[in-house]
């Protein structure tokens, strides 16, 4: 029988009272009628007017409350991760490698966000150096143009579904005997190489096609032809006494620029008793970063470069007793003998390189190096580079196979051929014949938008990985943040499709290291310990056997006969800008706004031509010209560039992206179509161009520097090595001012402060920077590092054009002028016309000077005295400080700054749609350094000498109960510098590096004559040349 429960005794008893109440919904009487009754309402104490009053008050109160700024609460960790302490940065060793640039780095994270890249000093390759592209890459992590998840047929898809489809299609393609191509940029990761091998094992018709946007295949092929080794060797510019470069911009883009810059810096520095420096000779067509640092620079047209190599070859061969080759006349025929003699004198301690991708030219270069005995000393054929392994022949072959319909599937990995192939149309057409197209790009770029599947790769800061840049040198990358989007590492995608046993790439990587790398050492007996140490250091280096030398077996005369012949017409040469490189980071506003080191132009590429050539063409800067090579015709603006070869047009690749994101789309124009696939290798030189002026509206090129000479002022002091050896103060005599007491240095004529009784007491620290102009190569790594460290806003092309860039550090670039104060009289120029002439850079072949200028932190600061509200003041540690909150924006300080380093917030640069860069969206803001205030509109800002880094270093030392050691604290610019040209330190520390440098006779203060007593000093630029000679 069913059990019964009663709600209470009442229900059990079931009294009539209970029944009545139960049927009533409400126990008590509800006065509904009374309320509805009008009389009752009018009796109520709340009148209609009262009601309206209350309503009015409530509405007003609610609106007022709504006016208050929304409160954003920062919520601390409830359960704090062990390794994260709010306000304390964590550094993780990792590796940057994007298919071209290699750099071992430390990633600075704050509260789990990577915010800054620093160089890893443990790497014996890059030794703590970085470049602009590596520095800027942290911003690319927070790029809202990245895909949030995989796409199948342009629609969002799930990873599992997409994997199933792709695996099936790959299997089908393989089964039907159709080829599967993995088109990738150079792969330097040993584990990734193994994954590719696994993939090929699973799908036997698969193959790897290595395609770099800018190929170095010529070097690989050239070495194969010369030594039977298809490799890229390693170079030691620090061991070279004479460097001869034929158009190779080894400080900016050639092979491994960070590493080479570091080595080059070693050879150029005159420190610690070193009395010699390398002699750098550059033979080139366009003015490159390397060329502008050269001691001697010869101009040749691009089509004359091969003949120039042959000319030097002949002279060296004559000295070595070899036979000569014939390759046509070159402009350096006259100078070749002298160059050869210099090389010959530095036998075994010289290096000759060429930027050409023509294997035949590389054979000649190898032959010269071989005759000079450079293999084994400055060039090593055993420690080979894995950084560039592009195979142009394979690319050509693939194109044919795709057109023939033999390719069933293609996977694009870290490469964008639809953008970067010379004939993109032909490539797209061939691609259309492939039935399964997969891209691993992180965004829907030009190639990915032509693909069926996009399986977005992680950003490198989200990735695991390893790189073997050189044989025997290993580095690891580790994720520094959880993936922001539903992305998957490219290697892991391939691994999945290859059906690997491991669950993820991390496990695969560890297994690979345990099997392949761990046995290479014997110091550690546990793999876990080895793994942890390698991960912590970021690097694991082993010794490589071999002398590095090899016997030259190439056929020089055959190679010489196949060289490019000098052309009489106009040549076009492609180059990579120091900022944008091959264009893979074109959506990075820091790089777009980094002034080109040579032209100082931001946000554009252009046809750079010699001013006298422009006169011949009747065009001037900003005019749009149409350059036609074969059937390729491109329009773009003209830039007047001194030091260019005549009849030559230089144009940067990497611009004109269409599918990269808001910042990069439509900036400049794509110059890759000028490249060509000739004789099985990509050529970045084209002869026989025709130029026509168009009627298009002029394009204004926004440059941060519009005046190009020093006007006879001692801004960058210079001397020659021979003069310096005779007199350590050569080129840098003391600044003396005539006074009633005889000539005195400016400090001696001070009315108030003296050395004994300084204006500011600095009892604890006295910070300062020393900049060696001999080591500075002008690369701009410091500029981007400063942007990242100090939350410097990006302002865009229009504002740059108005001379309103916000960079706290700039690199001034000067050309020499044909007219100097000394020779003006001889030229018959009066004072007025002299200055007019001095404004013009020597058009033919001026020398180039770089000078990084940041706030000089004057101890007699003109800015400090004039601020009405004392917003800029002096610290007791020698720093010139800015209190943004106090600034009222009179700009008097900026006017009164003799160095013009102060920057004013003309607009609100954050959260302002007028400036659609990283400070506008929530994602982009994640890169901001929480230690540095984002400045508001209407206030002045400037270099703080990274006061937050100083403070951090001081606190770390304090916690350890000691003084901060010399070199322990570094400003962002000093840290990023690939050549260590910038040294930061404490003048109060008698043994500090910065004090040692200050005592050097080469040191000087900029504008010493006005006695503002800067904390920053410079060191004279020394060129290794004879006085008055090239």
């Amino acid at each position, binding site marked *: 029988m069913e059990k019964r429960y009663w709600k209470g005794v009442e229900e059990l008893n079931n009294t009539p009272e209970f029944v009545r109440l139960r049927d009533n919904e409400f126990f008590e009487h509800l006065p509904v009628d009374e309320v509805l009754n009008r009389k009752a309402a009018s009796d109520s104490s709340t009148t209609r007017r009262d009601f309206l009053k209350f309503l009015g008050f409530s509405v007003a109160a609610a609106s007022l409350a709504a006016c208050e700024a929304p409160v954003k609460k920062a919520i601390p960790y409830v359960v704090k991760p062990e390794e994260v302490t709010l306000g304390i940065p964590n550094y993780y060793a990792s590796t940057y490698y994007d298919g071209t640039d290699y750099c071992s780095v430390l990633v600075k994270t704050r509260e789990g966000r990577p915010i800054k890249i620093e160089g890893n000093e443990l790497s014996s390759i890059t030794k703590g150096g970085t470049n602009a592209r590596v520095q800027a890459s942290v911003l690319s992590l927070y790029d809202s143009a990245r895909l949030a998840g995989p796409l199948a047929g342009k629609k969002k898809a799930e990873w599992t579904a997409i994997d199933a489809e792709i695996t099936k299609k790959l299997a089908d393609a393989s089964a039907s005997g159709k080829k599967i191509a993995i088109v990738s940029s150079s792969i330097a990761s040993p584990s990734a190489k193994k994954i590719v091998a696994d993939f090929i094992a699973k799908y036997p018709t698969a193959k790897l096609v290595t395609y770099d946007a800018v190929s170095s295949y010529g070097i690989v092929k050239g070495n194969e032809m010369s030594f039977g080794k298809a490799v890229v060797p390693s170079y030691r510019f620090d061991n070279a006494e004479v460097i001869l470069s034929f158009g190779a911009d080894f400080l900016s883009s050639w092979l491994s620029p960070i590493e080479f810059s570091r080595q080059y810096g070693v050879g150029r520095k005159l420190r610690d008793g070193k009395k010699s420096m390398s002699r750098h000779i550059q033979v080139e067509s366009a003015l490159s970063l390397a060329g502008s640092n050269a001691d001697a620079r010869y101009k040749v047209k691009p089509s004359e470069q091969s003949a120039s190599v042959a000319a030097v070859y002949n002279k060296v061969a004559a000295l070595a007793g070899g036979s000569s080759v014939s390759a046509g006349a070159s402009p350096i025929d006259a100078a070749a003998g002298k160059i050869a003699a210099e090389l010959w004198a530095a036998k075994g301690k010289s290096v000759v390189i060429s930027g050409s991708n023509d294997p035949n030219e590389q054979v000649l270069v190898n032959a010269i190096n071989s005759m000079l005995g450079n293999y084994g000393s400055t060039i090593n054929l055993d420690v080979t580079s894995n950084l560039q392994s592009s195979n142009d022949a394979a690319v050509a072959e693939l194109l044919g196979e795709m057109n023939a319909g033999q390719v069933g599937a293609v996977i694009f990995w870290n490469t964008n051929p639809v953008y970067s192939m010379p004939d993109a149309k032909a490539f797209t057409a061939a691609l259309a014949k492939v039935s399964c197209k997969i891209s691993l790009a992180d965004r829907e770029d030009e190639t990915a938008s032509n693909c069926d599947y996009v399986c977005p790769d992680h950003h490198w800061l989200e990735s695991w990985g390893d790189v073997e840049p050189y044989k025997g040198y290993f580095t690891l990358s580790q994720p520094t943040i959880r993936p922001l989007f539903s992305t998957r590492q490219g290697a892991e995608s391939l691994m999945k499709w290859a059906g690997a046993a491991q669950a993820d790439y991390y496990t695969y990587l560890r297994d690979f290291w345990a099997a392949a790398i761990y046995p290479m050492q014997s110091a550690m007996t546990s793999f876990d310990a080895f793994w942890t140490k390698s991960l912590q250091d970021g690097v694991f280096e082993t010794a490589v056997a071999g002398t590095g030398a090899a016997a030259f077996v190439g056929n020089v005369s055959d190679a010489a006969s196949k060289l490019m012949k000098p052309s009489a017409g106009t040549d076009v040469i492609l180059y990579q800008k120091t900022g944008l490189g091959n264009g893979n980071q074109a959506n990075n506003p820091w790089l777009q706004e980094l002034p080109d080191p040579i032209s100082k132009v931001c946000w554009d590429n252009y046809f750079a031509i010699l001013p006298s050539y422009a006169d011949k063409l009747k065009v001037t800067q900003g005019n749009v010209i149409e350059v036609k090579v074969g059937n390729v015709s491109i329009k773009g603006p003209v830039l007047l560039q001194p030091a260019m070869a005549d009849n030559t047009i230089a144009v940067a690749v990497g611009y004109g992206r269409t599918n990269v994101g808001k910042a990069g789309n439509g900036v400049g124009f794509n110059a890759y179509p000028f490249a060509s696939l000739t004789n099985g290798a990509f050529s970045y030189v084209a002869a026989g161009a025709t130029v026509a002026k168009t009627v298009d509206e002029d394009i204004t090129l926004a440059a941060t520097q519009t005046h190009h000479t020093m006007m006879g002022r001692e801004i960058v002091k210079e001397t020659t090595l021979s003069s310096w050896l005779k007199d350590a103060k050569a080129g840098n005599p003391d600044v003396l001012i005539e006074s009633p007491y005889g000539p005195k240095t400016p400090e001696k004529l001070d009315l108030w402060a003296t050395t004994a009784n300084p204006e500011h007491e600095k009892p604890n620290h006295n910070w300062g920077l020393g900049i060696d102009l001999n080591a500075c190569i002008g690369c701009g790594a410091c500029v981007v590092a400063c942007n990242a460290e100090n939350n410097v806003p990006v302002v865009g092309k229009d504002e740059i054009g108005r001379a309103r*860039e916000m960079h706290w550090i700039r690199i001034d670039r*000067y050309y020499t002028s044909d007219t100097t104060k000394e020779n003006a009289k001889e030229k018959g120029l009066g004072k007025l016309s002299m200055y007019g002439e001095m404004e013009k850079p020597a058009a033919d072949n001026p020398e180039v000077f770089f000078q990084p200028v940041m706030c000089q932190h004057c101890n007699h600061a003109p800015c400090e005295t004039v601020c009405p*509200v004392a917003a800029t003041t002096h610290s007791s540690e020698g720093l010139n400080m800015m209190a943004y909150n106090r600034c009222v924006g009179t700009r008097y300080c900026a006017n009164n700054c003799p160095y013009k380093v102060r920057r004013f917030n003309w607009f609100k640069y954050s959260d302002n749609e007028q400036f659609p860069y990283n400070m506008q969206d929530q994602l982009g803001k994640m890169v901001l350094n929480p230690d540095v205030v984002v400045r508001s509109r209407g206030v002045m800002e400037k270099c703080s000498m990274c006061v937050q880094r100083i403070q951090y270093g001081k606190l770390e030392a304090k916690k350890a109960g000691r003084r901060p050691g010399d070199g322990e604290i570094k400003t962002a610019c000093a840290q990023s510098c690939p050549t260590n040209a910038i040294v930061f330190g404490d003048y109060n520390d008698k043994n500090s590096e910065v004090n040692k440098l200050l005592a050097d006779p080469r040191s000087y203060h900029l504008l010493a004559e006005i006695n503002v007593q800067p904390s920053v000093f410079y060191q004279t630029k020394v060129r290794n040349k004879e006085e008055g000679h090239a």
Partner: protein
Amino acid sequence: MHKESELRPPLILGDKTWHDITEDVCRPVESKANKWWWLAFSVSSAALLWWIISVSYTLGTGLGVWGLNKTVGWAWDITNFVWWVGIGHAGTLISAILLLFRQKWRLSINRSAEAMTIFAVICAATFIVSHMGRPWVGYWPLPLANQFGSLWVNFNSPLVWDVFAISTYFSVSLVFWYTGLIPDFAVIRDRAKTKMSKRIYTILSFGWVGSAKNWQRFEEVSLVLAGLSTPLVLSVHSVVSMDFATSVIPGWHTTIFPPYFVAGAIFSGFAMVQTLLIIVRKVLNLEDYITIYHIDMMNRIILITGSIVGVAYITEFFIAWYSGVEYEQYAFINRATGPYWWAYWSMMTCNVITPQLFWSSKLRENVFATFIISIFVNVGMWFERFVIIVTSLHRDYIPSSWAMYHPTWVEAGIYIGSIGLFFTCFLIFARVFPVIAMSELKTIIKSSSEGEKKKAAKHSNKSESHA
């Protein structure tokens, strides 16, 4: 009473009685405005509207809407500021220094000149505020007690000196001007026909009854204020010049600046007085009071101060050469031959060459020529400040930072709008305040009016014939 020779030209023409003066001066206040006034008022208020739009746009968007850049941090803003402050100087000079020197001819022009001073300083002040990056905290340069901690202004900064100089100047000028207005307000009050105007002018005239005690106090206060204002005539523009002179920028760092700026200020101030009064005397029919003699006297001052300014320009060049300083020499060569050569040569033409025409008495006494030359001087003095500020800044020490400055429509709007603000104020002044200090002018009718001189001449002729 002071006896004045009949040979001296009369300061009041026509047979004016005391009552005539009252009628002539009060007429514009008591009658309806004519169409010329309305036309001028419409034009200047339109310009004022443009000023409001431009200033609001600047405040709302940021100073980036101007043409300034990293190298040229001041341009039209401070040019206009110095220009307006300079213009103000004539008023104070006329009312203070000429009072102390007992120059009677000042009496016909001091009221308008002082009004001009007040309005010019107001215009100047608008540029101080609008040129700031954060005008909403524009009061921070004032040494006010505050809750920001121990924050104080930086007394080393010439901008703080400016704050003191300009605010003192404005307050003293305002009090001086108002004091002089009191007896005249009382006259209007006594003649007022409507209740409203009676009430307003009663308040404005502070209960003036014209008693001997009133007059005695009036004289004393005037003398004290004249004494206070006299150093201001010299100090205000000296301080303004120190904004530049104490800096390190070549072309700014110049010890000659204080006297050079003061002379320039008086020069431009008198030119502006001429521009204004030549119109006012015509429109308000005051030719009998503001006579050719007055115009001649002011032209002489323009000639003298213009020559001083010219000598200063040449001295600067000489010192630049004599100093042997590279930067200084280039700064001056750049002024004359650089990209802004046209500004320099406009300045030289307008300020140095045109005033020299006043050596000719025919031109000094020609109203039309005076008007044209006064406009030239106004333009020239604007260019002088532009040259000093922009051409010095745009190419200073480090050539890499050299840049050009190009103004925008917003800056043009604020400048032209400030002229609109000035004229709007002045036109309202001309309608509601007595434009000539009639009570004071009446004190010289016995000694210096044409009518009295004629009488006296007749009398003396008589006595001669008797003799």
